[in-house]
C-alpha cells in the first residue's frame, strides 16, 4: 500500500445489531460502556428509551434497531456513546448494541442519492458490505420533529 493510499483510509467503529453489522465514523465515538440503569420519564419522542448517567452527564438512549432491522432488539451488551450534531450544538447520545465493537481502518464509498437518509456511505470489510451510519439523521432531533410536523400538515391538507 502506498503512503498516499494509506492517508485516505479512515477509522470506523463496527457495531453489531442482531445479525447485522453497521459502521460509524470513529471520530464520532466517545466510548463503549456496559449497560447501566436507564432512567425513564414521560415524553413523546419515538425511539428514545430514556437517559443514562455517564460521567456526571445525562445522556439520552436512542434505540436505532427498529429503523435499521425492522424489529426492536431487547438484548443489549454495550452502549456506544457517540457525538450527535444538532444545528448549533453537539451532544452525546447512547446507542444500544448487541455485540462486540471493532475499530477498523478502511476507505468509504460515498452514499448514492437512492440510499436511505441514514446511510452516510458504504465500506467493505471481511467480505461484507457494511452501511456507514449518519447518526444525525438516524436519531431524533429538532430537525426530524420539524419534518414530521410538516409531513403531518401536508397529509391534513390533502382532500
Amino acid at each position: 500500500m502506498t503512503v498516499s493510499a494509506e492517508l485516505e483510509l479512515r477509522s470506523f467503529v463496527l457495531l453489531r445489531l442482531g445479525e447485522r453489522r453497521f459502521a460509524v465514523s470513529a471520530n464520532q465515538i466517545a466510548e463503549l460502556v456496559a449497560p447501566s440503569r436507564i432512567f425513564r420519564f414521560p415524553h413523546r419522542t419515538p425511539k428514545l428509551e430514556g437517559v443514562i448517567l455517564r460521567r456526571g452527564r445525562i445522556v439520552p438512549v436512542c434505540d436505532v434497531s427498529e429503523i435499521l432491522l425492522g424489529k426492536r432488539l431487547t438484548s443489549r451488551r454495550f452502549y456506544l456513546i457517540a457525538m450527535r450534531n444538532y444545528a448549533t450544538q453537539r451532544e452525546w447520545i447512547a446507542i444500544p448494541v448487541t455485540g462486540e465493537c471493532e475499530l477498523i481502518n478502511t476507505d468509504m464509498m460515498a452514499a448514492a442519492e437512492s440510499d436511505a437518509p441514514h446511510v452516510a456511505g458504504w465500506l467493505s470489510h471481511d467480505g461484507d458490505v457494511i452501511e456507514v451510519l449518519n447518526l444525525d439523521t438516524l436519531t431524533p432531533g429538532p430537525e426530524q420533529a420539524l419534518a414530521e410536523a410538516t409531513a403531518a400538515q401536508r397529509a391534513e391538507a390533502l382532500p
Partner: protein
Amino acid sequence: MRLAAPVKPSPAKTEQIILFRVSGQLFAVSSASVQEVRSADSMSGAAIEINAPGLRKVRHVVRRGDRSLFIVNGAMHFGLHAVEGALLFVLRKTRTALLIDGIEKMATMTRLQALPLSFCHEERQWYRGLTALDQSVVPVVHPEGFLSPEELALLDAALLEADNSAAAGLEETESAQ
C-alpha cells in the same frame, strides 16, 4: 512580589425543589413555583365541572374571585396510567392546579441540565430540564407547561359556554316560578 489574593469559590446556585409522584412516576418542581398545596377533597366542593372538547386532562375548574384555576390531571397530561390524584399544587403565576398522587420529599437541586436535544416533542414544553439526585435522574417540570395558550383559549370558551347555559337555566327557573 505580591501574590494575588486567593479567589473564594462562589457558592453553587441551588434551588429548593419538591419531589412528587404522578401515577408512580417521580417529578420535581421548584418550590418557589408552588403557591399552595391542597388536598383534592378540600377543593372538590368548590370545583365546577367543565368539558372542553379534545382536552380530557381538565375536568374541573375552581373560581377564585375573578380568576379561574383549571385542575389538570397530571397522569393524563403526561400520558400515564390514570389514578385518582390526592393532592393539588396551585402553581404560581399560572391558571393551573396540578392533581398529583403525593409529595415524596423536599430536596436541593444543585444543577439543572437542559433537556437533551434528542427530546424534541411536547416534552420540551413540559420540562425545564433534568436533574441528578441520589444517583437518579428526575425531570423538573415547567409550571407553565401544563396548559398551552391554545388549551387555555379552549378552556375559556368552554367555561363561557358553561356560564351561559347556567344563566339560561336560572332564567328558565325564575320565569317558571
